[in-house]
Structures are given as C-alpha cells and as structure tokens.
C-alpha cells in the first residue's frame, strides 16, 4: 500500500510539473488552455486518491477528499468551456497569427441563435 501511495504521489507531481512547463512553453491561448488540463484531472485525481488512502491507512477512509475531487471534476470542464468560448469571442489568433473566421462566426452566431429562440419563446408566451 505504501508503494502504491508513493507511485500515485510521483505521478501527480510529474503531471503538475508537466503542465507548469506546458503553460510556459506553448505558443497560443488555445494550446495554453488545453495544456494544464491533465493537472486538474489526472494530477489532482492521483493526489486526492493518495490523500484518501493516506487518511485511510490511519483512521478511516476520508470522504472529504472525495468531495474535493468531485467538485474539481465537475467544475474544471465548465471553466475550460467558458475560457475557450471567451477566447473565440475575443477573436484570438492561432500561433503564427493565423485567424479562424468561420469558427469565430460560429461561436458568435450560436449565441445569437439562442437569444433569438428565447425572444420567440417570450413572444409566444
């Protein structure tokens, strides 16, 4: 059990270090958004599993560590989605200055479509 906890901790440390290097080295905002995602899923998952087993080796299996893991696993995809939508909304270019006009328009039009649909439903009410 001790070696398993040690392996989980080393895995988490490597993922954290990898994402820290990636957020420095990557060239544009979209790759910087995707780079640190393993830290918040795999790294935090391994670290919290190690914390649960660590507590479990002493008195009882810790439910609080599982709660932190559940909150992180639910919220991190939502914040990543919001950040990607913000980056597309601000029309940020790819690395090398390449633009993505169709995808910008798609990201903006989807919001307009949903607001139009809401207006229609408001009028029908």
């Amino acid at each position, binding site marked *: 059990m001790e070696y398993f906890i040690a392996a989980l901790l080393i895995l988490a440390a490597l993922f954290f270090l990898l994402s820290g290097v990636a957020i420095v080295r990557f060239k544009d905002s979209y790759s910087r958004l995707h780079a640190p995602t393993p830290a918040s899923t795999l790294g935090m998952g391994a670290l919290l599993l190690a914390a649960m087993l660590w507590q479990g080796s002493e008195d009882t299996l*810790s439910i609080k560590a599982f*709660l*932190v893991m559940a909150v992180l696993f639910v919220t991190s995809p939502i914040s990543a989605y919001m950040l990607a*939508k913000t*980056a597309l909304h601000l029309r940020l270019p790819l690395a090398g200055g390449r633009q993505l006009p169709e995808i910008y328009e798609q990201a903006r039009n989807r919001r307009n479509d949903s607001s139009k649909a809401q207006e229609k439903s408001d009028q029908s009410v």
Partner: protein
Amino acid sequence: MLDSIVYVTMGFIGVAMVGTFWRLIKGPTIVDRVIAMDKLFVYSIGLILCLGMAEHTSLYYEAALLIATLGFISTTAMCKYLLRGDIIE
C-alpha cells in the same frame, strides 16, 4: 519514505506555480491571465492537500474545498464579464 515524497511533490508543484505565475504576469492576452489564475487555484489546492498529508491532519480539506469552489466562481465570473460586459444581467 512517504514524507519525503510528499515534500518532493510540494517542490514540483512549487515549480509549476512559478511558471504559471510568470505566465500570469507576462501573458499577452487577458485569456492567458485568466487561465493562469484558474490553474494557480488548482495548484494551491494540491499544495494544501500535500501540506495536510505532511502534517498528518485532515483539517485542510475544508480549505481545499473552499478554494476549489471560489476558483470556479471567479473564473466563471471573469469569463462572463469578458463575454457579455456584465456579470449578472
């Protein structure tokens, strides 16, 4: 053995935090800064959990839970402000 591994993990997280903080200061666009802030919240949760493991106490889980919730809320509020120019419409 495990105690020293916990301290090594804390050191690795510290290195990652330094890199992310550099990106928070330098970041060419505002989205890079928001990403760096979001990741700093995650790293601080990891650091606090490692501190709890090193001190053999389960006292820090509430703090980690609070930081996770507040980090999500602040990232979402920042994105809403950048998307719509307003947070609560």
